[in-house]
């Protein structure tokens, strides 16, 4: 029996979240005395693939046909389903990313598997599988039981710690049976802004709300994020992206991105329920607000009642001294 894990790559490299996912799947493999098998799709060097062994993968299926450079959910589903059947996989794990969200539901239909999307912890039972997921946009959790032979789980980012468990992984080149009709979606253009850190990947977020007053004044937070380091980026609340002070991809909250960084700074954010729903899984929340009754202070671990434009420069200075 084996546990299958889809390890996504970004331009041929794995990210921290790939290792987080492997560590999670490896623990399930231990709980069920199964072998951990990874699937990689796209061009990745053997050396990079071998790095998956460090986190418990015993075998790695490597699908690197050029056709797969376009992320077609139909083709990816067929490829992973073929490997799952070959391996007799009973549990299949994805990251809750664009690819995971595109492929896992299709795979669930193909294998008639029970899918639990957005898991935040290890299963509390493996037979049947019972696992905790986020629900009501972060305002609650649901323990979900799978009533099928195969379980598919997608794991939310920043929900599990990376643990090493070195294995000498065997790499298996694999050519799935897909045809041209599985690639009906054609990519016309890719517009990549920069090598900017995505709000979902950042360990520390410096976020601003309407209290930042203007696009120009908001820039003090860019300065702070830069002072903290490359693992930190800027985020914003909904009114700020609606006013076009900041781009939409920085919007965190119930209707934007749901994030769970280690540290979340909220400058001039009052803390509407929809905003809190998107950030309340952050490990440490810091609120800076002039209104001492703002709901953000109820969600925060640390707070300063004061003006963002007076506080931020002092914090930047202290961070520079610290680094």
């Amino acid at each position, binding site marked *: 029996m084996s546990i299958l894990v889809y390890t996504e790559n970004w331009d041929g490299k794995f990210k921290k979240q790939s290792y987080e996912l492997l560590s999670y799947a490896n623990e399930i493999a231990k709980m069920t005395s199964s072998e951990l098998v990874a699937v990689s799709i796209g061009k990745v060097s053997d050396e990079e693939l071998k790095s998956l062994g460090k986190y418990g993968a015993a075998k790695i299926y490597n699908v690197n046909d050029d056709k797969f450079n376009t992320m077609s*959910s139909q083709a990816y589903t067929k490829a992973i389903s073929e490997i799952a059947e070959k391996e007799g996989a009973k549990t299949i794990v994805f990251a809750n990313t664009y690819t995971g969200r595109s492929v896992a539901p299709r795979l669930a239909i193909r294998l008639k598997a029970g899918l639990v999307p957005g898991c935040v912890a290890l299963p509390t039972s493996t037979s049947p599988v019972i696992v905790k997921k986020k629900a009501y946009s972060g305002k609650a959790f649901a323990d979900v039981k799978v009533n099928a032979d195969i379980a598919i789980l997608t794991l939310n980012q920043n929900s599990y710690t990376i643990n090493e468990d070195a294995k000498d992984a065997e790499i298996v080149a694999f050519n799935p049976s897909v045809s041209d009709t599985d690639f*009906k979606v054609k990519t016309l253009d*890719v*517009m990549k802004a920069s090598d900017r850190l995505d709000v979902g990947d950042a360990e520390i977020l410096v976020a601003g709300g309407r209290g930042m007053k203007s696009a120009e004044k908001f820039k003090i937070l860019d300065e702070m994020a830069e002072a903290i380091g490359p693992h930190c980026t800027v985020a914003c609340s909904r009114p700020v992206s609606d006013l076009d002070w900041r781009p*939409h991809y920085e919007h965190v909250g119930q209707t934007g991105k749901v994030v769970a960084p280690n540290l979340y700074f909220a400058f001039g954010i009052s803390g509407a329920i929809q905003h809190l729903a998107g950030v309340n899984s952050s490990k440490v929340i810091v609120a800076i607000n002039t209104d001492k009754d703002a709901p953000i202070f109820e969600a925060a671990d640390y707070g300063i009642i004061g003006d963002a434009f007076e506080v931020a420069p002092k914090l930047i200075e*202290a961070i520079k001294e610290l680094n």
Partner: protein
Amino acid sequence: MKILVCISHVPDTTAKISFTNDNKTYNKDNVQFIISPYEELALTRALELKEAKGEGTITVINVGGAETEPTLRKALAMGADDAIRVNAEATDAYFVATQIAEVAKANSYDIILTGKESIDYNGGQVGEMIAEILDIPSITSVSAIDVDGNKGILEREIDGGYEKMECEFPFVGSGQKGIAPEPRIPAMRGIMMARKKPLAVVEPTNSDNLTEVEVHTLPEPKGACKIIDADNAKELIRLLHEEAKAL
């Protein structure tokens, strides 16, 4: 051009979250229900596409009991032409997707739209599942969509930018923020007309529930917030570094 928009009936975004039935079931008492926000945006865009093309029909579908009909009527008031309610409780994505796919098989829609996820279960599974059952392509987290002849031109957000794609009909797209700038607000005329528009009730087909919620829990309440004096803002950085070990 025939577009099917899948609608979920969810608690208002500001609704209090509590549970009954040993924490298995959401407590609906005094809660206002709405069209899930991403689906409201997807429907808005579907209406715009029809208006731009000058022809087409927009059908909305929901799997739910009779109590979900006001939500479908609201979709009709926004401008959808007709509605279908599959008369069953929406318990599990596999079950819901099978029901909608069954309706879709009989109606050959060009485009099927969903939201990227409902704001209650946050599953984001139904659209892709319908596509797999129908063996057609699916595009997840669509932030823009246009129609050119029998093709859709779509955009989705990727890390740091956008990817632009095209796909021939039929396909499934799940809409996210950006697909339409603001949800359409029904006008009085639309609300009057919605009462007369067709709302068909169909009985469910045989299917399975492959998952079930055992219990809900609420997040642990936070401890008290430690307030640091604004004049001593640097102290915050020391605490984050030494006490919280977060910096």
